[in-house]
């Protein structure tokens, strides 16, 4: 958590912060055959960013963040497949609103609790969402998944093509918007307040901060971003499966964020990138070892490298500076 935010932090965007975007644009031209994977990575970066806001900055531990992602995906999918709403922007809006509504409703409940009870509640809420999606087969397709999603061209002009070019750029544009909003928030007084709550909520109460209300705001915004990411997944895959809901995808997302580095904004970029690329290459050949490796990595990161990849990079840079 070394990225300084707060009242003395320089909010200007540094050069290094443009690098992910340059890389993403370069990827579009240089790796055309990997665009579908790229779109998936961009979607998960947005999802991870939403988790970083509440986990990394506000310090809320949740095992059920997939509830918002899944809800967003299903709302967009159902609207498109069953109700004939095909405008991609409208679908995103609807998904974000639905996820935000779920966020405010569940946040109002879980943020009053702490510790095991809070963990348990987030898990139970995600489990309820999974059960509903699983059992309401007539609407969600149940275990077979929801297919038959058709999406109209973006702004009536850009069709989702077979090579995933439009999908990639669409994801990139939305991630950019999501990143911009999140970054603005983190550098704002509100962001500083969230960090204060994470560091010491007792003290925040004592300086007059309505902690619960601030957390609820952050939680709702995070839910909306996650819902947006879920809807993006539905639009670009034109399919929604049960695997977007429940404990496993929540855990997986947490793994990605931890791998990249929590509470440093760009950990949410690095984590999904590394995880999903590794998964694409390794998981198909060695599914069991892949899972084992993920677990091992998590254990090692927790025991030895709490800052994740970016934390390690920081330390290497710091050490290099010492010798130069």
């Amino acid at each position, binding site marked *: 958590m070394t990225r300084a935010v707060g009242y003395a932090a320089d909010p200007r965007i540094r050069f290094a912060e443009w690098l992910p975007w340059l890389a993403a644009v370069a990827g579009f031209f240089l790796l055309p055959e990997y665009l579908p994977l790229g779109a998936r990575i961009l979607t998960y970066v947005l999802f991870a960013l939403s988790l970083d806001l509440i986990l990394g900055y506000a310090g809320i531990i949740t095992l059920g963040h997939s509830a918002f992602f899944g809800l967003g995906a299903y709302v967009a999918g159902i609207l498109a497949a069953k109700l004939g709403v095909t405008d991609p922007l409208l679908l995103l809006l609807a998904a974000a609103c639905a996820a935000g509504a779920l966020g405010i409703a569940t946040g109002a409940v879980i943020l*009053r609790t702490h510790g095991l009870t809070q*963990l348990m509640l987030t898990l139970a809420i995600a489990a*309820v969402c999974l*059960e509903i999606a699983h059992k309401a087969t007539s609407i969600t397709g149940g275990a077979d998944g929801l297919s038959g999603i058709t999406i109209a061209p973006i702004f009536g002009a850009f069709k989702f093509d077979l090579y995933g070019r439009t999908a990639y750029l669409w994801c990139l544009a939305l991630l950019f918007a999501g990143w911009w909003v999140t970054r603005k928030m983190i550098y704002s007084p509100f962001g500083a307040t969230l960090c204060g709550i994470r560091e010491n909520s007792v003290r925040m109460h004592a300086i007059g901060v309505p902690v619960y209300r601030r957390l609820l705001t952050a939680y709702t915004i995070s839910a909306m971003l996650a819902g947006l990411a879920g809807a993006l997944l539905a639009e670009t895959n034109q399919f929604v499966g049960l695997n977007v809901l429940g404990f496993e995808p929540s*855990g997986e997302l947490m793994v990605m964020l931890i791998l990249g580095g929590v509470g440093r904004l760009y950990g949410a970029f690095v984590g999904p990138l590394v995880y999903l690329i590794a998964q694409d290459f390794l998981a198909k050949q060695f*599914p069991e070892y892949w899972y084992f490796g993920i677990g091992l990595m998590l*254990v090692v990161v927790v025991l030895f490298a709490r800052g994740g990849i970016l934390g390690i990079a920081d330390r290497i840079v710091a050490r290099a500076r010492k010798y130069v």
Partner: protein
Amino acid sequence: MEVFLSSLVSVAFHGIAYGMILYVISVGLSVTMGLMGFVNLAHGAFAMAGGYVLTSAISRFGLSFPLALALAFIAVAAASVLLERWLYSRLYDAGELEQVLFTIGLIFMAVAAAQVTFGMLQRPVLLPDYLKGQISVLGRDFPAYRVFLIAVSSAMIAALWFGVERTLWGAMVRAAVDNRAMAQSIGINTRRLFTLTFALGSGLAGLGGALGAEIIAIQPTYPFEHLAYFLIVVAVGGLGSLRGPFAAALLIGVSDTACKYWLPQFGAFFIYVATIFLLLWRPAGLFGRRV
């Protein structure tokens, strides 16, 4: 009416059997969370390990069922001592997030290891003949295995409660749950106490997993799939308590069985919803000690 009554008895019976297993598996989780404040999400992996020890001991090495049960307890308890000493103990003072992540990592590893070693399919339990038939109790037939399961669980629970309430070890555990610093200052070796208690809790989980292998199928995704139920038992029952989780486990066992019997189209929906409302009503659980 007769049919309804009969299914009522049947649901109660199976529900109690299920609840007993849930309790034997989860009680260790309640105690370790209450005693050490450690959020051990990987607890289900110990139960799964117990199940695999049992099935392998019987099918590969031809051990008798009771011996295989005992082995499940001992092997899992022994393995957990190593894990506790090497890994868990490093994180006693770490934050909740670290503990959660670490134990999720252990779950991933356990799931993968089980897949590699035992394959994706669920492992059948080879029951001895004397547990296969029906036993007639009060003019009604019950599956012998479940009667056995309830009997063994009850014996274990009685032994556990006696141990915690009447022995020196139990007194030390209760003291340490109440106030760790105080317990340390009066000379209790909390380090060793933790290891022992962790081993006992994990051993019980292994035993529960083995004993309940017929009810909760032993397969690699076990620690993921049933985690929520184990946590519900602990959260609803109240941390660090022995009796709370017992009541909670029976409640969940019976209501889950009832829901799945009469309202299968809703699956576990009601259990989760009920848990949410219950925790809202009493955040520290039904029998939690915090005000």
